[in-house]
């Protein structure tokens, strides 16, 4: 465990511990606005970072806690709704017009409370039953928002929910919004990586592997799982707020069942083993969503069938690599290592 290794010497510096590929990816992402056009910055990378952030909350629960929750999109949407209801939107009859710096923390707290309450119900079950109970609550949330006009404005939802102008920057413009989503995604990623090796994260992995043993070590397994839902809700909530700002609206469809399943697909395609997985999955998903209609039309098919392509892509990944793209990457590295001389590291001929 890296955190415990701190006692050993000599230690590489923090910069040395970061693999070269991370430096390359970081530089590429930072310089992306100089390479990519607005469509890619806003619709591809912006959306991928947002979906990846929401899926990251699922990765934390499923990868480290062994709890596959289908609630993360509902939690994200709830945070988005709170931003629309308490902040500014096109539905002036409901929205209160509070400033963003008041609204955003409240949205995260509300999302957190919601996830904690639902988590307390969900963690009483395991496996397929957790999936079913969170799916049921996600469906209930969707129908509630669609039928409630007093708070959620029913079917119409809230149009005109825009990101604020801060420091004189309009954060909805493609380049600022790209950096905003990138910043949130990176911070959430680093927080999850850090917490995974902190006592809370380590214990969560212990709870995943052997809850009975963890109870016998003095851990309250029930509350550990519930608090994992609370923690994941903050990440999902941040993603939800960004999603609403990107779309400029929040409506029941934001938390509809297709969106709920999309988050699961994104997380599984990327891989649940490491926090980078959801972002890889999100990028693949967004690229398929963005370009599948064009490909289909090129073959004389309706662009409306892009979901079929997404579904086939999902099937292909889980068929060849049940642990997602990260699993493929691991196997490729293992194969490459097998082809090398163990002593010299040179490729055998």
């Amino acid at each position, binding site marked *: 465990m890296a955190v415990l290794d701190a006692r050993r010497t000599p230690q590489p510096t923090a910069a040395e511990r970061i693999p070269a590929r991370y430096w390359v990816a970081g530089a590429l992402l930072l310089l992306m606005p100089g390479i990519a056009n607005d469509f890619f910055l806003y619709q591809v990378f912006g959306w991928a970072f947002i979906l990846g952030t929401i899926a990251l909350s699922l990765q934390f629960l499923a990868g480290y806690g062994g709890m596959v929750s289908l609630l993360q999109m509902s939690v994200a949407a709830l945070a988005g709704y709170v931003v629309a209801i308490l902040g500014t939107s096109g539905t002036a009859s409901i929205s209160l017009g509070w400033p963003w710096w008041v609204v955003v923390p409240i949205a995260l707290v509300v999302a957190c409370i919601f996830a904690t309450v639902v988590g307390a119900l969900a963690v009483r079950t395991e496996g397929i039953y957790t999936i079913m109970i969170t799916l049921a609550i996600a469906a209930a949330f969707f129908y509630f928002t669609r039928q409630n006009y007093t708070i959620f404005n029913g079917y119409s939802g809230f149009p005109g929910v825009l990101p604020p102008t801060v420091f004189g920057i309009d954060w909805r413009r493609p380049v600022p919004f790209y950096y905003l989503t990138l910043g949130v995604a990176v911070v959430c990623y680093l927080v999850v990586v850090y917490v995974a090796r902190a006592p809370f994260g380590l214990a969560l992995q212990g709870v995943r*592997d052997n809850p009975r043993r963890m109870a016998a*070590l003095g851990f309250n397994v029930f509350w550990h799982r519930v608090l994992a839902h609370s923690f994941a809700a903050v990440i999902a909530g941040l993603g939800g707020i960004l999603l609403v700002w990107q779309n400029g609206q929040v409506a029941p469809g934001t938390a509809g069942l297709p969106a709920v399943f999309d988050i699961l697909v994104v997380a599984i395609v990327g891989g649940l083993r490491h926090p980078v997985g959801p972002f890889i999955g999100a990028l693949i998903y967004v690229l398929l969503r963005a370009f599948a209609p064009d490909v289909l039309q090129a073959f004389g098919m309706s662009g409306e069938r892009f979901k079929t392509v997404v579904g086939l892509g999902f099937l292909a990944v889980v068929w060849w690599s049940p642990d997602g793209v990260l699993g493929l990457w691991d196997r490729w590295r293992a194969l490459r290592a097998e082809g090398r001389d163990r002593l010299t590291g040179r490729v055998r001929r």
Partner: protein
Amino acid sequence: MTLASTNGPRLATASAGNALELRGVTKTFGALAALSDVTLSVRPGERRAVLGSNGAGKTTLFNCITGDFLPSSGTIRLFGEDVTRFPAHERIRRGLRRTYQISLLFGGLSVLDNVYLACRGVSRARFSLIRPFRSDPLMARALELTEAVHLTASRDTRVAALSYGQQRQLEIALALAGAPRLILFDEPAAGLSPAERADLVAILTGLPAHIGFILIEHDMDVALRVAERVTMMHNGRIFKEGLPAEIEQDEEVQALYLGGPGGHGHG
């Protein structure tokens, strides 16, 4: 090196009475009574062996004491407090520990990580989102316990790569984390080589005097060497209690478990 710990928020609440007191504990699974009207008292610091053939109810007894099973009837008091309906983690926080017949460890983590987790489990900061600093006293404690069970050389080894005997030793380290006052050892010598058994006996006899334990063990040599008193179980009931020498000489016990006078090995 000392096994005394400063990490035990509830240690001060120890009562002057028995460490463990079971009154009429019964556990049934459908029509099967795994435990029937078990009454048992263990003094603080006492070392007790619980012997009996397979199916006698020894592990069920442990599971009831630790809270893995709720008894069908009867009461369990731990250091004077009625814990009959307490969940497992609440009993652990009151100084109870246990090891398992089949090692339940975290194979993907190192030896030190496992012990560190155990130290965290009985600390107040078990939900901490902050990684420990170098000066973390729990880390020092984890190193101390690793040394106590003779695993210092393997402290950075992944648990999955340890030998079976080393895993049993690690189980004991986990049980010693925090401020244990009563430890339940479930067949700690099972599967160990003679040398490892000698090591185990040294660890058990070297425990501080204030730490009592109850030992389930089929190896009579180990059990009778480390125990001050012996409780014999049969068909879910306690049928004999006494000093090791008394139990060893008891004709009824010999007939049932030792294969006749002078016999060794369990039935």
